[in-house]
Protein backbone atom coordinates (compact mmCIF):
# COMPACT_ATOMS: atom_id res chain seq x y z
CA UNK A 1 0.00 0.00 0.00
CA UNK A 2 1.32 3.40 -0.94
CA UNK A 3 1.34 5.98 1.88
CA UNK A 4 0.81 9.70 1.07
CA UNK A 5 3.96 11.79 1.54
CA UNK A 6 3.87 13.61 4.91
CA UNK A 7 4.91 17.26 4.84
CA UNK A 8 6.33 18.57 8.10
CA UNK A 9 5.88 21.99 9.65
CA UNK A 10 8.88 23.96 10.83
CA UNK A 11 8.51 22.58 14.37
CA UNK A 12 8.63 19.02 13.01
CA UNK A 13 4.92 18.20 13.47
CA UNK A 14 3.04 16.82 10.44
CA UNK A 15 1.22 19.42 8.29
CA UNK A 16 -2.56 19.26 8.80
CA UNK A 17 -4.35 17.66 5.88
CA UNK A 18 -6.06 20.17 3.59
CA UNK A 19 -4.05 23.16 4.74
CA UNK A 20 -2.34 25.42 2.24
CA UNK A 21 -3.34 27.20 -0.92
CA UNK A 22 -5.81 25.50 -3.20
CA UNK A 23 -4.91 25.17 -6.87
CA UNK A 24 -6.07 28.25 -8.76
CA UNK A 25 -6.53 30.30 -5.61
CA UNK A 26 -4.23 33.31 -6.01
CA UNK A 27 -4.13 36.51 -4.02
CA UNK A 28 -2.69 38.61 -6.83
CA UNK A 29 -4.74 40.63 -9.28
CA UNK A 30 -3.84 42.39 -12.50
CA UNK A 31 -4.23 46.17 -12.85
CA UNK A 32 -2.92 48.65 -15.42
CA UNK A 33 0.35 50.34 -14.49
CA UNK A 34 -1.28 53.73 -15.14
CA UNK A 35 -3.50 53.16 -12.07
CA UNK A 36 -0.44 52.67 -9.89
CA UNK A 37 1.33 55.69 -11.35
CA UNK A 38 -1.72 57.86 -10.75
CA UNK A 39 -1.92 56.75 -7.12
CA UNK A 40 1.75 56.67 -6.12
CA UNK A 41 4.63 59.10 -6.34
CA UNK A 42 8.06 58.21 -7.70
CA UNK A 43 9.56 57.24 -4.32
CA UNK A 44 6.67 55.04 -3.18
CA UNK A 45 7.55 51.46 -2.24
CA UNK A 46 5.51 48.81 -4.07
CA UNK A 47 5.28 45.16 -3.00
CA UNK A 48 5.87 42.82 -5.90
CA UNK A 49 6.33 39.08 -6.21
CA UNK A 50 9.88 37.92 -5.69
CA UNK A 51 9.82 35.61 -8.67
CA UNK A 52 8.38 38.33 -10.87
CA UNK A 53 11.09 40.74 -9.72
CA UNK A 54 13.81 38.21 -10.40
CA UNK A 55 12.45 37.49 -13.84
CA UNK A 56 12.14 41.13 -14.83
CA UNK A 57 14.99 42.86 -13.07
CA UNK A 58 17.64 40.35 -12.14
CA UNK A 59 18.16 38.58 -15.38
CA UNK A 60 21.47 36.85 -15.60
CA UNK A 61 23.34 38.21 -18.53
CA UNK A 62 26.47 36.88 -20.04
CA UNK A 63 29.28 39.17 -19.04
CA UNK A 64 31.90 38.98 -21.75
CA UNK A 65 35.32 38.13 -20.44
CA UNK A 66 37.49 41.19 -20.90
CA UNK A 67 39.84 40.72 -23.79
CA UNK A 68 43.37 40.92 -22.53
CA UNK A 69 44.95 43.83 -24.25
CA UNK A 70 48.64 44.07 -24.63
CA UNK A 71 48.97 46.69 -21.85
CA UNK A 72 51.28 46.00 -18.97
CA UNK A 73 50.37 47.02 -15.42
CA UNK A 74 53.25 49.48 -15.55
CA UNK A 75 51.69 51.25 -18.50
CA UNK A 76 48.35 51.41 -16.71
CA UNK A 77 49.99 52.98 -13.70
CA UNK A 78 51.47 55.74 -15.85
CA UNK A 79 47.96 57.05 -16.35
CA UNK A 80 47.83 58.00 -12.65
CA UNK A 81 48.90 61.59 -12.15
CA UNK A 82 51.72 62.63 -9.88
CA UNK A 83 50.63 65.44 -7.54
CA UNK A 84 52.89 68.46 -7.78
CA UNK A 85 52.92 72.20 -7.23
CA UNK A 86 55.10 74.58 -9.22
CA UNK A 87 55.92 77.96 -7.65
CA UNK A 88 57.57 80.79 -9.54
CA UNK A 89 59.33 83.51 -7.55
CA UNK A 90 59.55 87.09 -8.77
Amino acid at each position, binding site marked *: MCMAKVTLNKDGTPRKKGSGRKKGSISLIEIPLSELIAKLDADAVVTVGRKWHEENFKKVVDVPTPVEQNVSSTEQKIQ*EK*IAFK*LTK*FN
Partner: protein
Amino acid sequence: MEVPFAELFGQDRVKRRLSFYLDAFKKTSTCPFLLMVGAKGLGKTEFARQFASHLKNRDGGYRPFLELNCSTIRNLEQFFDQIYIPLIMESEITVLFDEAHELPRDVTNAFLTIFNTEKDDYVNFRWQDGEHPFDFKKQTFLFATTEPDKLFAPLKDRLTTIAFEDYNTDALAQILNVQLEEISFDEKALHELALTTRGNARDCVKLAKEVYKYCQVKNKTIFTEKDFADFCFVTGINPLGVNDIERKVLTILRREGQASLQELSAKTGLSRTALQRDVELHLMKLNFIKIDGKRHITRAGSNYIDATEGT
Protein backbone atom coordinates in the same frame (compact mmCIF):
# COMPACT_ATOMS: atom_id res chain seq x y z
CA MET B 1 69.98 93.14 1.54
CA GLU B 2 67.36 90.42 1.92
CA VAL B 3 67.98 88.24 4.95
CA PRO B 4 67.08 84.58 4.33
CA PHE B 5 64.39 83.10 6.58
CA ALA B 6 63.74 86.44 8.30
CA GLU B 7 60.00 85.76 8.15
CA LEU B 8 60.31 82.38 9.84
CA PHE B 9 60.59 81.95 13.59
CA GLY B 10 62.61 79.38 15.52
CA GLN B 11 64.73 76.57 14.01
CA ASP B 12 67.91 78.64 14.46
CA ARG B 13 70.23 75.71 13.75
CA VAL B 14 68.34 74.91 10.57
CA LYS B 15 68.50 78.56 9.50
CA ARG B 16 72.25 78.68 10.08
CA ARG B 17 72.89 75.60 7.99
CA LEU B 18 70.59 76.60 5.17
CA SER B 19 72.09 80.10 5.10
CA PHE B 20 75.52 78.49 4.77
CA TYR B 21 74.33 76.39 1.82
CA LEU B 22 72.83 79.50 0.22
CA ASP B 23 76.18 81.28 0.52
CA ALA B 24 77.94 78.21 -0.90
CA PHE B 25 75.45 78.11 -3.77
CA LYS B 26 76.28 81.69 -4.71
CA LYS B 27 79.94 80.68 -5.14
CA THR B 28 79.57 77.19 -6.62
CA SER B 29 76.07 77.08 -8.17
CA THR B 30 75.59 73.73 -6.49
CA CYS B 31 73.86 72.58 -3.36
CA PRO B 32 74.05 69.26 -1.51
CA PHE B 33 71.01 67.02 -1.76
CA LEU B 34 69.34 68.14 1.45
CA LEU B 35 67.05 65.86 3.43
CA MET B 36 64.73 67.77 5.79
CA VAL B 37 63.79 65.49 8.66
CA GLY B 38 61.28 66.21 11.40
CA ALA B 39 57.79 65.63 12.74
CA LYS B 40 54.81 67.03 10.90
CA GLY B 41 54.10 70.72 11.36
CA LEU B 42 57.71 71.74 12.05
CA GLY B 43 58.09 73.72 8.83
CA LYS B 44 60.13 71.41 6.58
CA THR B 45 58.25 72.33 3.44
CA GLU B 46 58.08 76.02 4.33
CA PHE B 47 61.84 76.17 4.97
CA ALA B 48 62.47 74.30 1.71
CA ARG B 49 60.27 76.81 -0.13
CA GLN B 50 62.07 79.77 1.46
CA PHE B 51 65.43 78.17 0.68
CA ALA B 52 64.41 77.65 -2.94
CA SER B 53 63.20 81.26 -3.22
CA HIS B 54 66.81 82.43 -2.79
CA LEU B 55 68.35 80.22 -5.47
CA LYS B 56 69.11 82.14 -8.63
CA ASN B 57 69.64 80.96 -12.19
CA ARG B 58 72.72 81.82 -14.16
CA ASP B 59 70.83 84.65 -15.87
CA GLY B 60 70.02 86.20 -12.47
CA GLY B 61 66.35 85.18 -12.41
CA TYR B 62 64.88 83.10 -9.62
CA ARG B 63 64.44 79.37 -10.09
CA PRO B 64 60.98 77.89 -10.00
CA PHE B 65 60.25 75.50 -7.17
CA LEU B 66 58.60 72.16 -7.81
CA GLU B 67 57.02 70.30 -4.87
CA LEU B 68 56.28 66.64 -5.50
CA ASN B 69 54.20 64.46 -3.24
CA CYS B 70 56.13 61.17 -3.38
CA SER B 71 53.14 59.10 -2.32
CA THR B 72 51.64 59.79 -5.75
CA ILE B 73 54.70 58.56 -7.68
CA ARG B 74 54.02 54.98 -8.84
CA ASN B 75 57.10 54.06 -10.85
CA LEU B 76 60.13 55.37 -12.70
CA GLU B 77 58.42 55.49 -16.08
CA GLN B 78 55.63 57.65 -14.71
CA PHE B 79 58.18 59.92 -13.03
CA PHE B 80 60.18 60.43 -16.22
CA ASP B 81 57.08 60.88 -18.40
CA GLN B 82 55.14 63.26 -16.15
CA ILE B 83 57.82 65.10 -14.24
CA TYR B 84 61.38 64.75 -15.49
CA ILE B 85 60.84 65.29 -19.23
CA PRO B 86 58.31 68.14 -19.11
CA LEU B 87 59.56 69.98 -16.02
CA ILE B 88 63.12 69.11 -15.07
CA MET B 89 65.17 68.15 -18.13
CA GLU B 90 67.01 71.15 -19.58
CA SER B 91 65.44 73.43 -16.92
CA GLU B 92 66.91 75.39 -14.06
CA ILE B 93 64.69 74.37 -11.19
CA THR B 94 64.57 73.33 -7.52
CA VAL B 95 62.72 70.11 -6.81
CA LEU B 96 61.41 68.99 -3.42
CA PHE B 97 60.52 65.33 -2.97
CA ASP B 98 58.08 65.61 -0.08
CA GLU B 99 57.30 62.49 2.00
CA ALA B 100 60.41 60.96 0.41
CA HIS B 101 59.97 57.72 2.37
CA GLU B 102 57.04 56.97 0.01
CA LEU B 103 59.25 56.81 -3.08
CA PRO B 104 58.70 53.51 -4.92
CA ARG B 105 61.59 51.09 -5.08
CA ASP B 106 62.48 51.50 -8.77
CA VAL B 107 62.64 55.30 -8.40
CA THR B 108 64.74 54.90 -5.27
CA ASN B 109 67.13 52.59 -7.13
CA ALA B 110 67.46 55.06 -10.00
CA PHE B 111 68.15 57.84 -7.49
CA LEU B 112 70.99 55.77 -6.04
CA THR B 113 72.72 56.18 -9.41
CA ILE B 114 71.56 59.73 -10.12
CA PHE B 115 72.50 61.17 -6.75
CA ASN B 116 75.81 59.35 -6.50
CA THR B 117 77.90 62.40 -7.34
CA GLU B 118 81.17 62.04 -5.56
CA LYS B 119 83.11 63.76 -8.34
CA ASP B 120 80.92 65.46 -10.90
CA ASP B 121 78.00 67.84 -10.89
CA TYR B 122 76.56 66.09 -13.88
CA VAL B 123 75.03 62.63 -14.29
CA ASN B 124 73.74 61.14 -17.51
CA PHE B 125 71.27 58.51 -16.42
CA ARG B 126 70.65 55.92 -19.14
CA TRP B 127 67.34 54.11 -18.96
CA GLN B 128 65.17 52.38 -21.56
CA ASP B 129 67.49 53.34 -24.44
CA GLY B 130 67.17 56.99 -23.47
CA GLU B 131 69.59 59.44 -21.89
CA HIS B 132 68.39 61.51 -18.96
CA PRO B 133 70.88 64.20 -18.06
CA PHE B 134 70.94 65.66 -14.55
CA ASP B 135 72.95 68.86 -14.22
CA PHE B 136 73.25 69.79 -10.57
CA LYS B 137 74.37 73.31 -11.43
CA LYS B 138 70.98 73.79 -13.04
CA GLN B 139 68.85 71.55 -10.86
CA THR B 140 68.72 71.47 -7.08
CA PHE B 141 67.11 68.49 -5.37
CA LEU B 142 65.69 68.60 -1.86
CA PHE B 143 63.95 65.86 0.11
CA ALA B 144 61.67 65.94 3.16
CA THR B 145 60.32 63.20 5.35
CA THR B 146 58.63 62.61 8.67
CA GLU B 147 59.86 59.01 8.69
CA PRO B 148 63.57 58.86 7.88
CA ASP B 149 63.77 55.28 9.14
CA LYS B 150 61.64 54.22 6.17
CA LEU B 151 63.95 55.83 3.64
CA PHE B 152 66.20 53.31 1.87
CA ALA B 153 69.49 53.58 3.78
CA PRO B 154 71.81 53.81 0.73
CA LEU B 155 69.73 56.72 -0.59
CA LYS B 156 69.79 58.39 2.82
CA ASP B 157 73.59 58.07 2.75
CA ARG B 158 73.68 60.19 -0.40
CA LEU B 159 71.68 62.99 1.21
CA THR B 160 72.66 65.63 3.76
CA THR B 161 70.28 65.55 6.72
CA ILE B 162 68.86 68.74 8.20
CA ALA B 163 67.07 67.88 11.44
CA PHE B 164 64.13 70.01 12.56
CA GLU B 165 63.44 70.41 16.25
CA ASP B 166 60.27 71.17 18.18
CA TYR B 167 59.61 74.90 18.45
CA ASN B 168 60.28 76.40 21.83
CA THR B 169 57.58 78.37 23.60
CA ASP B 170 59.11 81.75 22.73
CA ALA B 171 59.12 80.98 19.01
CA LEU B 172 55.52 79.74 19.19
CA ALA B 173 54.50 82.88 21.08
CA GLN B 174 56.14 84.97 18.34
CA ILE B 175 54.22 83.07 15.67
CA LEU B 176 50.96 83.71 17.55
CA ASN B 177 51.80 87.39 17.95
CA VAL B 178 52.52 87.81 14.25
CA GLN B 179 49.38 85.96 13.24
CA LEU B 180 47.26 88.06 15.60
CA GLU B 181 48.77 91.52 15.29
CA GLU B 182 45.50 93.25 16.10
CA ILE B 183 45.21 91.55 19.51
CA SER B 184 47.25 92.53 22.57
CA PHE B 185 48.24 89.60 24.73
CA ASP B 186 48.86 89.38 28.41
CA GLU B 187 52.33 87.77 28.50
CA LYS B 188 51.29 84.80 30.63
CA ALA B 189 48.20 84.13 28.52
CA LEU B 190 50.33 84.15 25.37
CA HIS B 191 52.77 81.74 27.00
CA GLU B 192 49.93 79.40 28.04
CA LEU B 193 48.46 79.54 24.55
CA ALA B 194 51.83 78.70 23.00
CA LEU B 195 52.20 75.70 25.32
CA THR B 196 48.97 74.17 24.01
CA THR B 197 50.47 73.82 20.51
CA ARG B 198 52.91 71.10 21.60
CA GLY B 199 55.92 72.60 19.83
CA ASN B 200 54.21 72.47 16.46
CA ALA B 201 54.25 75.55 14.23
CA ARG B 202 51.35 74.40 12.04
CA ASP B 203 49.18 73.83 15.12
CA CYS B 204 50.20 77.29 16.26
CA VAL B 205 48.86 78.87 13.07
CA LYS B 206 45.63 76.86 13.44
CA LEU B 207 45.33 77.98 17.06
CA ALA B 208 45.77 81.62 16.02
CA LYS B 209 42.67 81.29 13.84
CA GLU B 210 40.69 79.93 16.81
CA VAL B 211 41.88 82.76 19.05
CA TYR B 212 40.93 85.26 16.36
CA LYS B 213 37.41 83.82 16.19
CA TYR B 214 37.15 83.87 19.98
CA CYS B 215 38.16 87.54 20.14
CA GLN B 216 35.70 88.40 17.38
CA VAL B 217 32.84 86.62 19.19
CA LYS B 218 33.70 88.19 22.56
CA ASN B 219 34.48 91.55 20.98
CA LYS B 220 37.94 91.67 22.53
CA THR B 221 41.23 93.24 21.48
CA ILE B 222 43.06 92.28 24.67
CA PHE B 223 43.59 88.61 25.59
CA THR B 224 44.19 87.98 29.30
CA GLU B 225 44.74 84.93 31.51
CA LYS B 226 41.02 84.94 32.27
CA ASP B 227 40.34 84.85 28.55
CA PHE B 228 42.73 81.92 28.20
CA ALA B 229 40.73 79.94 30.78
CA ASP B 230 37.46 80.82 29.06
CA PHE B 231 38.97 80.09 25.64
CA CYS B 232 40.05 76.62 26.82
CA PHE B 233 36.58 76.04 28.25
CA VAL B 234 34.66 76.97 25.10
CA THR B 235 37.01 75.32 22.58
CA GLY B 236 37.72 72.19 24.62
CA ILE B 237 41.47 72.82 24.48
CA ASN B 238 43.27 71.56 27.56
CA PRO B 239 46.23 73.36 29.09
CA LEU B 240 49.61 72.14 27.78
CA GLY B 241 47.83 70.81 24.69
CA VAL B 242 46.88 67.55 26.39
CA ASN B 243 44.11 66.08 24.29
CA ASP B 244 41.03 64.30 25.64
CA ILE B 245 42.43 60.80 25.02
CA GLU B 246 45.65 61.61 26.86
CA ARG B 247 43.57 63.03 29.68
CA LYS B 248 41.52 59.86 29.78
CA VAL B 249 44.68 57.77 30.05
CA LEU B 250 45.88 59.94 32.93
CA THR B 251 42.52 59.58 34.66
CA ILE B 252 42.60 55.77 34.26
CA LEU B 253 46.13 55.57 35.63
CA ARG B 254 45.26 57.71 38.63
CA ARG B 255 42.22 55.57 39.40
CA GLU B 256 43.92 52.21 38.84
CA GLY B 257 47.36 53.10 40.19
CA GLN B 258 49.03 51.37 37.29
CA ALA B 259 48.06 49.62 34.07
CA SER B 260 49.63 47.57 31.31
CA LEU B 261 49.52 48.74 27.71
CA GLN B 262 46.98 45.99 27.00
CA GLU B 263 44.73 47.20 29.83
CA LEU B 264 44.94 50.79 28.60
CA SER B 265 44.12 49.57 25.11
CA ALA B 266 41.02 47.76 26.40
CA LYS B 267 39.88 50.73 28.47
CA THR B 268 40.40 53.42 25.85
CA GLY B 269 39.49 51.40 22.76
CA LEU B 270 42.74 52.47 21.08
CA SER B 271 45.24 50.06 19.58
CA ARG B 272 48.49 49.45 21.42
CA THR B 273 50.40 51.10 18.59
CA ALA B 274 48.21 54.20 18.64
CA LEU B 275 48.63 54.47 22.41
CA GLN B 276 52.39 54.16 22.21
CA ARG B 277 52.82 56.44 19.21
CA ASP B 278 50.20 59.14 19.80
CA VAL B 279 49.47 59.20 23.51
CA GLU B 280 52.30 57.94 25.67
CA LEU B 281 55.03 59.88 23.89
CA HIS B 282 53.47 63.24 24.68
CA LEU B 283 52.60 62.27 28.25
CA MET B 284 56.17 61.12 28.84
CA LYS B 285 57.48 64.31 27.28
CA LEU B 286 55.44 66.25 29.85
CA ASN B 287 56.71 63.93 32.56
CA PHE B 288 53.12 62.94 33.37
CA ILE B 289 53.64 59.18 33.16
CA LYS B 290 56.52 56.77 33.55
CA ILE B 291 56.85 53.32 32.07
CA ASP B 292 58.63 50.42 33.71
CA GLY B 293 56.78 47.60 32.04
CA LYS B 294 53.56 48.96 33.58
CA ARG B 295 52.34 52.51 33.10
CA HIS B 296 52.25 54.81 36.16
CA ILE B 297 51.05 58.37 36.62
CA THR B 298 53.63 60.74 38.08
CA ARG B 299 52.98 63.41 40.71
CA ALA B 300 53.07 66.04 37.94
CA GLY B 301 50.45 64.08 36.00
CA SER B 302 48.27 63.74 39.07
CA ASN B 303 48.60 67.47 39.80
CA TYR B 304 47.60 68.22 36.23
CA ILE B 305 44.38 66.23 36.57
CA ASP B 306 43.62 68.00 39.88
CA ALA B 307 44.25 71.42 38.39
CA THR B 308 42.16 70.84 35.29
CA GLU B 309 39.31 68.87 36.82
CA GLY B 310 35.95 70.40 36.01
CA THR B 311 37.32 72.44 33.10
